């Protein structure tokens, strides 16, 4: 967006005589049915090619397979922790693929499929969950920020980055992912308000999977997430987060809008966390198999939903499906191999990463640390540790 950030959203609104923003005139909302799915007319306007939809399907199948592999690896003791994202494929793949390659994405910890769509090596990402590193990729290489653990805190980063893009006059949109639990944090609100005030080119993507560990959505969110955007002076929609086409079309339009100086946009993708919060979690303590069954059904399964759409378009064939499965299988195997082949950095690297311009005292501390390690190693060579 080539606008100055100092064009405040609210000034713009003032100029048109109205401060209150709502969705009435939002062309993106107009693409959707009351249930938040693309209407036939919406689908026509969005004009997503069959090839694109097949590619979205392909990424979702790959993502699902990698998720299963992550779970396997954790069960086999190769990972300390795994946070399954099955159920989120449409939201993550749809959103990540909708962003232009020049756009940026700031993910939250569960956005593994987004990272994969962005081309980050899944085996490398897993080194984080193996405890080898805190940061497995260079954000500039993929225009993809690091996974952020403290819930909600990546949202101000995304808004700041987007403000920077606007300042630089670059037509770049920034997407930020977060769960519905994150909407309860102060940072979420502050960042939404900054985005409204500074008219920042950000797309907020709430992956509302209805659970924050054991806390259900109704005990987490007073009101409805999508409704909150209006209070910040920009539009928000709730979409069917199991329909990759809808997510893709809406996020693509929102990103375009942001790039063109239209300001922020909130997309709440209603999905479901089909698995446990992480492998440390035990959902039987707080929800029933019946609860889960509803959301495991085909009607809510992103892959089944997309296959259905492809069939309806006549863009489905069995060979395509087989190829996609085979590719997913191959990628899972590569991911496993990459992970298991990853060697840890020298522990002394911990010191090197703290600063770009480390003070001498820290390098001194490193030297002492390394010397102590080496003396232990020597001792260990002869008589074992004391």
């Amino acid at each position, binding site marked *: 967006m080539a606008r100055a950030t100092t064009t405040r959203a609210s000034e713009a609104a003032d100029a048109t005589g109205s401060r209150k923003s709502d969705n009435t005139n939002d062309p993106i909302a107009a693409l959707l049915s009351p249930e938040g799915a693309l209407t036939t007319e919406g689908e026509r306007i969005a004009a997503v090619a069959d090839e694109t939809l097949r590619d979205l399907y392909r990424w979702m199948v790959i993502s699902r397979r990698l998720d299963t592999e992550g779970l396997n690896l954790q069960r086999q003791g190769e990972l*300390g*922790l795994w*946070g399954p994202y099955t159920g989120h494929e449409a939201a993550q793949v749809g959103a990540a693929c909708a962003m232009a390659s020049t756009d940026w994405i700031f993910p939250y*910890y*569960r956005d593994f499929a987004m990272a994969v769509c962005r081309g980050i090596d899944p085996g490398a990402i897993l080194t*984080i*969950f*193996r*405890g*080898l*590193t*805190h940061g497995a990729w260079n954000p500039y290489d993929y225009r993809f920020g690091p996974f952020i*653990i*403290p*819930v*909600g805190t990546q949202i101000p980063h995304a808004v700041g980055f987007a403000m920077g893009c606007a300042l630089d006059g670059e037509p770049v949109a920034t997407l930020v992912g977060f769960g519905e*639990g*994150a909407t*309860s*944090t*102060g*940072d979420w609100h502050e960042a939404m308000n900054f985005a409204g005030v500074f008219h920042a080119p950000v797309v907020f993507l709430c992956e509302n999977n209805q659970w*924050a*560990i*054991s*806390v259900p959505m109704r*005990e*987490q*969110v007073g009101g409805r997430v999508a409704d909150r955007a209006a209070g910040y002076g920009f539009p928000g929609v709730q979409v069917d987060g199991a329909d990759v086409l809808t997510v893709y079309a809406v996020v693509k339009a929102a990103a375009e809008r942001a790039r063109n100086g239209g300001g922020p946009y909130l997309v709440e993708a209603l999905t479901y966390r089909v698995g446990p*919060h*992480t492998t*440390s*979690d*035990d959902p039987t*303590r*707080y929800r029933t198999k019946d609860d889960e069954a509803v959301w495991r059904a085909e009607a809510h399964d992103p892959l089944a939903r997309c296959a259905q759409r492809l069939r309806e378009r006549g863009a489905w064939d069995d060979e395509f499906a087989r190829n996609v499965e085979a590719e997913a299988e191959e990628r899972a195997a590569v991911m496993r191999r990459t992970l298991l082949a990853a060697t*840890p950095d020298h*522990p002394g690297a*911990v*010191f090197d*990463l*703290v600063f770009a311009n480390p003070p001498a*005292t*820290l390098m001194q*501390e490193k030297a002492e*640390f390394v010397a102590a*390690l080496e003396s*232990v190693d020597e001792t260990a060579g002869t008589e074992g*540790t*004391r």
Partner: protein
Amino acid sequence: MSATSTTPSTATEPTTSQGTMQLTLGKALNLALHDALRDDPRALIFGEDVGRLGGVFRVTDGLQQEFGARRVFDTPLAESTIAGICVGLAIKGFHPVAEMQFDAFSYPSFQQVTSNLAKYHTRTGGACNMSVVIRIPYGGAIGAIEQHSESPETYYIHTAGLKVVTPATPADAYALLTAAIRDPDPVIFLEPKARYWQRQDVSFPLDPLPLDKARIAREGTDATLIAYGPTVQTALAAAETAAGEGTSLEVVDLRSLAPLDMETLTTSVRKTHRAVVLHEAPVFMGLGAEIAARLMRDLFDTLAAPVERIGAASTPYPPSRVEKLFLPDVDRVLEAVDRSLAY
């Protein structure tokens, strides 16, 4: 993302404290909370996932079932306001016991704790008691991802108006938490999460402990190891090894980090002339600094060697595969003792 690896199995364990029981530290905390809810109608328990789930470490396991969702409830994901409602509920005469899910997730509540909870008694001329306990699982060595292994004690103990304690054993866990809940002032209750599964025989009834007293965990004569929370066990193991080598180490378990029980410390070091402080927090501005400064002041002529400090480096907490290299361990303790003895 929560990184609770194995969870202490509590299903088959008793739900009430009586007789002598073998308890994990986590279960002892659970019983203390249970007994507080039973004995004190004003006690409330809340936080993220403390209800149905019973907490990611199961410390609140079964409490919502027994005492109902009015007294034990989940909150939205908002630590600042979790601390904030503690203030309001305390004014209303409740005794809130709030949980921060992990150490680093207490940071969003820093303003509420520092500027309000710690100062409200002063700000109301002593009218409003802040009878609040903030429970924080802390420390590393659990193989977790970022932000799940921090030792935030410096931030809290430097803040006047807070009492800060941490138990090292199941019995102390019960007795200190009971005391913290009964106390009329805000207590930051740091739980050594890597020790949740540590077991001990505990006999009930068990009196609450004073909130400002250390204990001698092992007697010795050659040097004093000063530890708290997760490092007490490390200190005891080091003392055991040293004993085999003919060195007699005294171990002090601080229990209270703010205030410090200097009397116990100086009595010990007056006897041993040497002290080693160990904690998981960074050495730089860790509690070892305060202890060293005070021992120097109080025992300048008695100390035979500088107070040794063992703690983390001046780096963010490292990835879990190498965390052991950054944590205090028996070898590092014994090397420090050697340095001290050789001084």
